[in-house]
């Protein structure tokens, strides 16, 4: 078959890219080679429309042990000779087509990124976005995604310890499924995704290859249209049992000392792993595709190169140590075959039946090598004028506080997500310290290291929509705040950037501003971005999703005695607000869901103020002056107070002495506020410390045995609120 520009375009390469390929090869590629470029130069593998801006993020420093993008996942120093490996990744488009398998394979893929580096995963989180929860389609997607995440994660045996779920109309067609995994490794025992050593054998291990998800990488980069449902081959089936065996076998094989480099096969399968490992090591590979174990007969070279069959790894082994490797995989009953060797010419040569099917310089395929990098135009979206035009005074203040609070506590974005979370095994590993003692972030014991990790995912897409720069900063700030309120010290970030079509200048504006804001905030908090992933094209004919740059953040708790929980502890304790109340209802759940205002600015946020509040809360925790800390987020102060009471079924008696709007005081979502509780004897000391640190504090009231009183009015008791909070989502989904 003669390869033409038309075929290139069918493979989602542009005419210019086709020319570039011809230039780089000095000839017209054959079809197999063209497929290789199509996979590798897809948005998903090449980051061609995002890398320019990603490079502006703080990508080294702090505790980082490898620079961002160098390895499959970020690696940071935990101290005591241990490293923490973590990453977040999207599986949005596959989940839209087949929610169960899409979400399941998303979880599988992110786990492989962790253990391919030699780390044992200890915790998973996920960040999900769906359309209106009352919609039948949303219910189907939600149920499938949750079942898929549970199916894979529960069987694989890593606890799902945290995450977030939002329901907004803009995600109706394009749900977001972002999965994060965190693992532990001994420093010096990590494995790099590189190929080195001429003549070293290359092994293929794990599941046999079928035609699963062929073209998946390109598929992930395509707009979802009516026809997408017929893109059948793009569906991949996950096998968590196989992955569990692969995990144990990979960690065992690393212990043999025979492994030179290892990389999992994710998007663009064999071509991606061979190209990236070779390019990184500055070598080439000779690969016999006949030796790849296959599940289906008569697979063609290009199908083998692009297949996205799950649970597969590529391992470069030190020559002479093949026996040790084979023995481990035999023990675990996993296919393992030598499919080629490392060469010195930088060329990837793929053979089949003795014929050379493709010959491509590895460097030309990869990001940072020959893959194109684009500078896209952007312009301020028109809707931002509507945002700027919002006037708080146009909204009448609330009259019935209690009734409003009752509505707010039952908004699906705020209500208890237990319908979802009970379907995830959150206790396997016997290390989830949050099961019996909740904190703002998940707290997981890092067994064997003497420490614990605090971890969280955060992003309020509506804030980012309202103000991409500030909204992305808030996502970082909130993640850091959650970790600080759990007694942790934030150390690093992984991000999952979910946006619409990058060729739309208004979408690209959101992307540029969000990345800039994220970078500025990460510099302030000294939390470098260790890696992550970009998911563009979360767009349907009516528009894009809210720009959703999900932040996954990890923090360290050096000593569990300084770990902090969120719930009220004792009747009679003082309740103190740290940070300043604002006359601000912008972009709040209250304004959006109860008042129906679509366009309003991001809530109040000042990064220096935020930083100071976090430092102050951290100092109170480390001085053991407080017994609980919970930040104010969606739903405002009222929701924070109620949530603090639920765990021990304690209540509160508080009063507002203020000139602010009532809705702003109780339901506003201004940032940089934390509610703490403490023994009455500590109040004066906290007040003095706050004065010298120049941090506003307000004594709100006291913890009660279970009744709730606001401004002298009785609000019933905590149990009745807890019942509403717990059952709001179940009542919708079980209806």
């Amino acid at each position, binding site marked *: 078959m003669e390869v033409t520009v038309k075929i290139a375009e069918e493979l989602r390469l542009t005419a210019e890219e086709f020319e570039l390929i011809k230039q780089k090869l000095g000839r017209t590629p054959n079809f197999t080679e063209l497929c290789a470029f199509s996979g590798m130069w897809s948005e998903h593998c090449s980051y061609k429309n995002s890398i320019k801006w990603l490079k502006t993020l703080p990508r080294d420093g702090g505790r980082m042990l490898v620079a961002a993008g160098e390895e499959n996942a970020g690696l940071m120093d935990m101290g005591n000779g241990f490293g923490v490996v973590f990453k977040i990744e999207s599986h949005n488009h596959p989940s839209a087509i087949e929610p169960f398998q899409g979400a399941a394979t998303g979880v599988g893929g992110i786990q492989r990124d962790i253990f391919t580096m030699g780390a044992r995963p200890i915790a998973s989180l996920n960040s999900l976005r769906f359309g209106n929860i009352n919609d039948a389609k949303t219910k189907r997607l939600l149920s499938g995604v949750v079942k898929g995440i549970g199916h894979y994660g529960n069987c694989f*045996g890593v606890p799902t310890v945290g995450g977030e779920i939002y329901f907004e109309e803009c995600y109706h067609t394009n749900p977001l499924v972002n999965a994060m995994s965190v693992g532990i490794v001994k420093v010096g025992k990590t494995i790099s995704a590189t190929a080195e050593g001429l003549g070293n054998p290359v092994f293929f291990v794990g599941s046999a290859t079928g035609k699963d998800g062929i073209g998946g990488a390109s598929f992930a980069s395509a707009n979802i249209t009516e026809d997408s449902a017929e893109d059948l081959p793009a569906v991949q089936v996950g096998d968590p049992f196989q992955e569990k065996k692969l995990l144990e076998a990979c960690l065992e094989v690393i212990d043999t000392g025979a492994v030179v480099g290892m990389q999992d096969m994710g998007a663009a399968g064999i071509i991606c792993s061979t190209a990236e490992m070779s390019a990184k090591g500055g070598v080439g590979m000779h690969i016999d595709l006949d030796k790849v174990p296959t599940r289906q007969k008569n697979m063609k070279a290009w199908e083998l190169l692009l297949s996205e069959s799950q649970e597969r790894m590529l391992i470069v082994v030190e020559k002479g140590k093949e026996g040790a490797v084979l023995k481990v995989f035999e023990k675990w009953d996993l296919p393992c075959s030598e499919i080629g060797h490392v060469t010195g010419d930088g060329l990837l040569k793929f053979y089949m039946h003795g014929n050379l099917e493709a010959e491509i310089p590895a460097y030309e395929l990869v990001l940072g090598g020959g893959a194109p990098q684009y500078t896209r135009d952007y312009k301020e979206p028109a809707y931002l004028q509507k945002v700027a035009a919002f006037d708080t005074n146009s909204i009448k203040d609330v009259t019935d506080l209690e009734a409003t609070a009752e509505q707010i506590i039952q908004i699906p974005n705020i209500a208890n997500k237990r319908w979802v979370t009970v379907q995830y095994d959150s206790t396997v590993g016997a290390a989830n310290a949050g099961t019996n003692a909740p904190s703002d972030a998940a707290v997981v*014991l890092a067994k064997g290291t003497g420490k614990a990790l605090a971890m969280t995912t955060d992003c309020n897409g509506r804030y980012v929509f309202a103000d991409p720069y500030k909204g992305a900063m808030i996502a970082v700030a909130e993640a850091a705040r959650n970790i600080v309120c759990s007694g942790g010290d934030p150390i690093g970030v992984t991000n999952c950037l979910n946006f619409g079509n990058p060729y739309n200048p208004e979408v690209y504006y959101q992307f540029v501003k969000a990345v800039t804001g994220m970078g500025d905030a990460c510099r302030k908090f000294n939390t470098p971005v260790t890696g992550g992933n970009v998911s563009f094209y979360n767009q349907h004919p009516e528009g894009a999703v809210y720009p959703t740059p999900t932040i996954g953040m990890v923090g360290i708790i050096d000593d569990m005695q300084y770990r902090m929980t969120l719930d009220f502890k004792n009747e009679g304790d003082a309740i103190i607000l740290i940070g300043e109340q604002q006359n601000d209802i912008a972009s709040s759940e209250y304004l959006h869901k109860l008042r129906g205002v679509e366009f309003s600015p991001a809530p109040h946020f000042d990064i220096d103020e935020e930083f100071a509040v976090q430092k102050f809360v951290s100092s109170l925790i480390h001085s053991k002056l407080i017994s609980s800390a919970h930040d104010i987020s969606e739903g405002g102060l009222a929701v924070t107070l109620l949530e603090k009471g639920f765990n021990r079924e304690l209540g509160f008696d508080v009063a507002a002495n203020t000139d602010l709007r009532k809705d702003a005081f109780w339901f506003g979502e201004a940032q940089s506020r934390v509610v703490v509780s403490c023994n009455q004897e500590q109040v004066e000391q906290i007040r003095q410390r706050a004065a010298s640190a120049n941090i506003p504090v307000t004594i709100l009231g006291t913890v009660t045995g279970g009744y709730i009183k606001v401004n002298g009015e009785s609000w019933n008791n905590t149990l009745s609120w807890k019942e509403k909070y717990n059952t709001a989502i179940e009542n919708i989904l079980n209806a």
Partner: protein
Amino acid sequence: MKFGIVVFPGSNCDRDMQDALQNDLGKEVIMLWHKDEDLSMFTTDDCIVLPGGFSYGDYLRCGAIARFSPMMKSVIAFAEKGGKVLGVCNGFQILCESHLLPGVLLPNAHQQFVCNNSYIINSTGGKALKIPVAHGDGRYFASDELLDELEANDQVIFRYCDSLGTIDKQFNPNGSLRNIAGIRNKQGNVFGMMPHPERASSSSLSNVDGLDVFRILGMN
């Protein structure tokens, strides 16, 4: 009393069990591989544990494939000699498939995986113990005659209850018959339970009720 923990492909609570027995209970533990057969290092005073997880992916039926592994032949012989055997979660399912324990574990009544803190209470009373469950197939099922027999022989060791020890359907996470959470065989040397005591045996997790479970089973 020393312990052996069988590792099947897909076991994922083996390390948690090892950690709890070694570090929380101070026991000697030997890890056993499903392809091996040798249990000669154990006497009938010792205990073999079948841990939780998804042996063979829990495909077909939970525990159905693991039952035929070489090590299980030895475990069955060990149990028949009077050695102690404890199966937790998937281990309980394997024991039922192996007919070392009567009955069967069916998919949860609500057809969903469930993970939460459940309370269970021992047949001899005592306080309700807060022990996590995490399973998709935990609904204990047997004929009425068999259930009557189990009760008559005092073979039902744990039932689901609330924090005060009240046994009622609403506190049952999976719809098991008669709120059964764990049983033993007639001879009293083979134990199976769905809740995970190894996930509640450390003060760092703010829950040590699991230690009481091991005590009740005579394994402390």
